């Protein structure tokens, strides 16, 4: 049962990822990525992390991907790869490297052996939001605070990076007058 679910979700995730890679249109890519995220979220569920399942769906699928789509639409940058690739030689090389990475993973995996997940059932509370929250506010207090700062900086960054566009436009007008 678990295995079947894993295989299905895994396959979907892979298909989503590959499709994202192949899609010519950035919007399609975003959608395929969404599919992939969803599949991963399912896997999270399989791995007894319901909270992360939720986060994955809300933050990624709900927020980040929407942001992506929004920007894509805003810029009209769905298809930027119509021009010929100036460094086309890189494509096969990249593929080779990707495969090599995969090969390393497979070999390493084989070496390590296929230990099954611990048979024992996890305690019921394992992975529930409460336990996560508890950790977040005790052990991971500091990282938690840092993420706060990071988000703050991101906000500042977005403001800084786009505010002065307006500024310069204004000053441009001013000088234009």
């Amino acid at each position: 049962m678990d295995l079947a679910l894993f295989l299905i979700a895994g396959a979907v995730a892979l298909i989503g990822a590959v499709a994202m890679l192949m899609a010519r249109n950035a919007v399609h890519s975003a959608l395929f990525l969404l599919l992939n995220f969803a599949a991963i979220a399912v896997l999270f569920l399989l791995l007894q992390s319901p909270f992360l399942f939720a986060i994955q769906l809300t933050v990624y699928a709900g927020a980040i991907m929407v942001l992506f789509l929004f920007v894509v639409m805003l810029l009209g940058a769905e298809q930027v790869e119509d021009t010929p690739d100036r460094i086309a030689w890189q494509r096969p090389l990249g593929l080779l490297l990707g495969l090599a990475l995969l090969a390393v993973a497979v070999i390493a995996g084989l070496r390590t052996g296929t230990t099954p997940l611990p048979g024992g059932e996890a305690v019921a509370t394992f992975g529930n939001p409460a336990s996560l929250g508890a950790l977040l506010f005790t052990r991971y207090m500091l990282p938690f605070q840092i993420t706060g700062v990071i988000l703050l900086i991101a906000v500042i960054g977005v403001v800084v990076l786009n505010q002065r566009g307006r500024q310069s436009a204004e000053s441009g007008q001013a000088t234009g007058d």
Partner: protein
Amino acid sequence: MLTWLIWLIPLLPLVGFLLNVFFIRQERAAGLVASAMVVASFLVTLVATFILGALPEEERLIQSVAWDWITTGSLYVPFAIMLDPLTAVMTLLVTGVGALIHIYSIGYMHGDPRVVRYFAYLNLFVTMMLFLVMANNMLLLFLGWEGVGLCSFLLIGFWFERKVAAAAAVKAFVVNRIGDAAFILAMLAIFSNFGTLNFYDLEHQGQVVPGFLERIPEIAGLTFGPAWQPIAIATGISFLLLIGASGKSAQVPLFVWLPDAMAGPTPVSALIHAATMVTAGVYMMARTEPLFVASPTTQSWVVWIGALTAFIAGSAAIAQWDIKRVLAYSTVSQLGFMVAACGMGAYVAAIFHLLTHGVFKALLFLGSGSVIHGTHETQDMRKMGGLRTAMPTTFWTYVVGAAALAGVVPLAGFWSKDEILAHAVAYGYWPQLIILFLTSLLTAFYMGRQVALIFYGQQRDHHYHAHESSRVMTVPLVVLAVGAMLAGFLNLPTLFSGMPAAHLLTDWLHPVLHEEAGKFNLMVALLATAGAVGMGYLGWWAYTSNAAKIKVGGKDPAYHYTGDLWDGMEQAWYVDVLYNTVVIAPFRGLGNFLARVFDPQGIDGLVVGVGRLFGWIAGGLRQLQSGYVRTYALVFTMGAVLILGFMLIFAR
């Protein structure tokens, strides 16, 4: 007393030199001071020699250390001079002839703008020559050796505006340097084998510094090692010394500088290039006689080189037009006689010939100087002729000198040359004897030729008005002419033992050279005299009777008979040409190749090339920095894959 007295001998001319360099600006003062110093030096030498002569024979070696010169490791060389019979003889010659030539120069150089400098050089030369002959060790001898070379350079190049003079000066110095290099090697070898450079044992600060000449018998008696070793050492060292002597004494194959050296003022030729400096090689060989004697191989080389030199130069002298070049080749030839004598073991004869030659050749040179002076700097004998009436003193003294050189009884040259030839007969050096004999015939011939060309016939060029030289020049001529007549009686052979001062020189030198007086060989004497007179007359006759055929710039009448051979003789058998093609031209080529090609492009090219290589690699790396962020990621990934791949290998 002698220990400080002998220092006066070289120091007096040195003072003269310093005075001339730093204080004297006047021609007159320069000449006077310089001459006075040399005369004073001569007088001191005389006194010293007499004092030396008063000592018992075995004590006739005065050494005096001024200061420690080189002291490092095992190397100890004092700055010290000595006086022994051989030195005394040389010193007398140097200061005596030197004094006359100084006086002569006052007249000869009159009016030259740089005459002060001239006398300074001359004084310096005498100083150096005295150091050469008085040195008690090889190194100080070498100081004098190169010092006289320097003065020779300065004086040959005295009229440096003339390209010929400049070239000749440099040539003289460089060719001498080749010999000197061998000399240096010889010194190194001497020190390495004997541990000293002193000639004789020297007591200094309570210690005995050994002298190598006295240790040669020890070496010869070495009991250890292969039997050839001591001889090999002696051969090696003496051979190097021979090369050194060849340079200074203008022997084959290094004689080429001397004829060119005639570009200097004539008194210089007389003093340096006839009477004193060029004989330094012979002196040195006599001084290191035990070394030469220890090596039969070297000795036979010495004889051959001397004989060959004598002949080659003698034949070259025949074909010269330049009045001084004749004398120059003649000098080379006579030096060959001396060297050959050394090789035969007749060192006293060599020194004897050195002495007499010093006198009569100085006379001849001064005479030629007088001629040149009287003919307004004419040196080409084709432009002369008939001068005997215009300059009688010069003529008569010149004839005396020529006869002495030719070996006419009883002038100086006869006795000394005869002693050498007699020695050759006595010790069976037949081939060399024949060569030397032929050379003496040639000598008489070219002297006859020269006298004829200069003094007989009609003056062939009338651009000048010939006149006799002033008193200051003729007096030295007369003095030397007297010397040329009498010097031979210094060392009469045993036959004349009853006469006063018979074999005086041999006896005097006995403490140094340990030779017995030479025997008289009537056969040789007769032959030589007959040959000299005959060939001298022949030469005179040939060129007086053919005087009409001699044209300014024309060929020699003898050319008609000998053809190209004459050219060969005129060019001294093309030795100079040989050097030019075999040594100098390749050397220049090599120099240019190394300097223009190999060094900038080969060695430096390699250095710069390394830099270029880095630049080239850097340029390549720059290409990779394409600006595409994806490429950067690609390289990134490559690195990642490699590291992960290494991980797999590591954890295998």
